[in-house]
């Protein structure tokens, strides 16, 4: 912002006409996955986001929601439609990194603000960082880093590590190794979408490892955990929250009990905002929220906080208001670093049974005030 604009804005504020400018309506376009195999993640994102929107009841905020079917080309077309026809100011909601990479760079280049509720690939945190791109969730490597940092403390000194053979999987293993202090005895890549892990489990048994790190999101994780429990190998399992989240562990059943998973949020996290969120979410939807719901809720509250401070038509002021992150996060501590990614505590959770349902509870802090590994590459 140049000096003249600053002066005009200051003058407007002092004259009391700023209030009118602040009431500029904000239109949000949410692109998320509501159909197909990955729908449960998008549904939680949407429900968490809308819960915050409805609780705030701000008449200046309107939201359009569309289903990307977990297909990048559909996501791009929806983004085009939202920008061209619906004339949205802010985009959000994408669950998957490959879809984010298809949509975000083009959207921010057209001057739209993008608030990430989940996917935060390294490219957008480092070289490709952008003043209009904010990750409210994490940087993709964070939860793997949490697992790596905590693994040695959980007694895993010889780790067998495994992920699907695709970019997020390769980043996952790199993220785990970044803070892991033990020895990696074997590193295995599986096929994306693989459902039978007998071969890998045999390798685990033969490897001489004393613990296993896995990143297998969605159905892959369900298959692996059930087969692993049945194999009787019995080594400690650790992973990121993606494989052991609220939406998934019910389908794993007792096989998931005791599994450690790295996260930046948990339903039992002790702060006022979180207690209110979990209670409201259960009352509204009749189920426990997942991390995706928590990110959606935080994203909406961040946006609402910025709307109170600046008008969306003044892009610089609005982005500055977002950067302040002046909202009560369900994660407790929350602030943005220069690349506009969160600085937050990373926790270790354990899957436990509470009555009829499986859920997670915090067993310790993995890393305090963690930013991310690509901060230096971001020139902004």
């Amino acid at each position, binding site marked *: 912002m140049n000096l003249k604009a600053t002066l005009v804005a200051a003058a407007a504020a002092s004259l009391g006409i700023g209030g009118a400018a602040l009431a500029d309506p904000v239109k949000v376009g949410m692109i998320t996955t509501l159909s197909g195999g990955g729908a449960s993640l998008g549904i939680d994102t949407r429900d968490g986001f809308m819960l915050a929107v409805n609780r705030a009841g701000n008449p200046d905020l309107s939201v359009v929601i569309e289903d990307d079917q977990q297909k990048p*080309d559909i996501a791009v077309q929806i983004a085009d439609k939202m920008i061209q*026809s619906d004339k949205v100011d802010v985009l959000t909601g994408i669950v998957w990194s490959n879809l984010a*990479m298809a949509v975000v760079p*083009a959207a921010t280049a057209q001057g739209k603000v993008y608030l990430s509720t989940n996917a935060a690939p390294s490219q957008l945190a480092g070289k490709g960082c952008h003043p209009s791109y904010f990750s409210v969730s994490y940087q993709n490597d964070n939860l793997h880093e949490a697992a790596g940092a905590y693994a040695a403390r959980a007694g895993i000194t010889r780790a067998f590590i495994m992920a699907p053979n695709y970019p997020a999987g390769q980043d996952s293993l790199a993220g785990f190794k970044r803070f892991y202090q033990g020895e990696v005895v074997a590193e295995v890549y599986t096929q994306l979408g693989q459902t039978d892990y007998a071969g890998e489990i045999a390798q685990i048994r033969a490897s001489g490892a004393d613990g296993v790190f896995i990143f297998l999101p969605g159905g892959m994780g369900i298959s692996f955990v059930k087969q692993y429990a049945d194999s009787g190998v019995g080594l400690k399992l650790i992973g990121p929250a993606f494989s052991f989240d609220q939406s998934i562990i019910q389908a794993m059943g007792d096989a998931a009990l005791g599994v450690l998973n790295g996260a930046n949020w948990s339903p039992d996290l002790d702060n006022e905002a979180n207690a209110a969120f979990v209670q409201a979410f259960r009352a509204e939807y009749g189920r426990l929220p997942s991390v995706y719901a928590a990110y959606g809720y935080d994203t909406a509250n961040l946006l609402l906080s910025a709307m109170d401070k600046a008008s969306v038509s003044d892009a610089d002021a609005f982005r500055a208001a977002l950067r302040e992150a002046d909202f009560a996060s369900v994660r407790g501590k929350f602030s943005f670093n220069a690349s506009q990614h969160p600085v937050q505590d990373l926790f270790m959770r354990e899957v436990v049974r509470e009555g009829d349902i499986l859920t997670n509870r915090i067993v310790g802090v993995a890393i305090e005030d963690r930013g991310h590994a690509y901060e230096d590459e971001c020139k902004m």
Partner: protein
Amino acid sequence: MRRETVLNAVLALGLLAVPLAAQAMGEPFIVTLATKVAILALAGVGLNIALGLGGMVSLGHAAFFGIGGYAMAVLAAPVQAYEPLMTWPFELAGTKSMPVIWVAAMVAGALGALAIGALSLRTSGVYFIMITLAFGQMLYYFAISWPAYGGEDGISIYVRNGFPGLNTLDPIQFFALSYGVLMAALMVSWVLARSGFGLALAGARQNPVRSAALGIRPYSVKLTAFVISGAITALAGALFADLNRFVSPSMLSWQTSGEIMVFVILGGVARLFGPVAGAALFILLEHWLGGFSEYWKLFLGLALLGIVLFARGGLIGTLAGREVAHD
């Protein structure tokens, strides 16, 4: 014949008029949708040469569609990153020029179709369907797991490639370009069907034994048609990648193969404008049904089922009467 000609003219003009009207009314997204129709119809025109003219039921055309898309990204990505495409054995920069990309995509698609076709055409009938499907799936898994070129994340090309004399970032100009390519491909398809080669292909489809007796080798005639078909579908893939400014393995998935086939059959197999009618109807259904139900694919499935069972010959066959037999 006459009714079909009128119908074709209506389709050609309609596909041109709708985006122009939308542009005038300030609805750029409808222009984007019409561009998508034109490009998907182009993919269908490619498949129709194998399917309609050659009787080759390929359930693996997503392979060529994806090859075209990746050809675009492989050439354009180095320019975006300010790095040469390769330095050995000679230095080659990438390119952002659409004509060059199109030629490369068609050559790559043709080579892919030559390899897959040469193996698959050793068989026929239901074997051919399964084998083309399996080869398509092989490329899909390869694209997902091969670390160069993005794997499952795909590659974003932030700025659409250029065409001499046009501003391709303007939706209506990019539409005009895609429309022009579609019309040219329809022309090629029309000439091909009426040429000596087209007759030989029809012969190879209807009666391979007699064709062989006449000195025509059905295998090489069919393979040639399959290669042309693959090249046109690859061209559509390159344009589709430019429309989205993005490629990913999902272009190679078997659902994409199924959808391209659906365009052709919805419109009418072996009908010149069948893919145009089919793609337009599919996109219309997708947007209309998608508007009122999360489960719109259920209704799409039921609609497709009804068309196969009760409206043989597809949209054009139903509207224009059936006289072009496919067997």
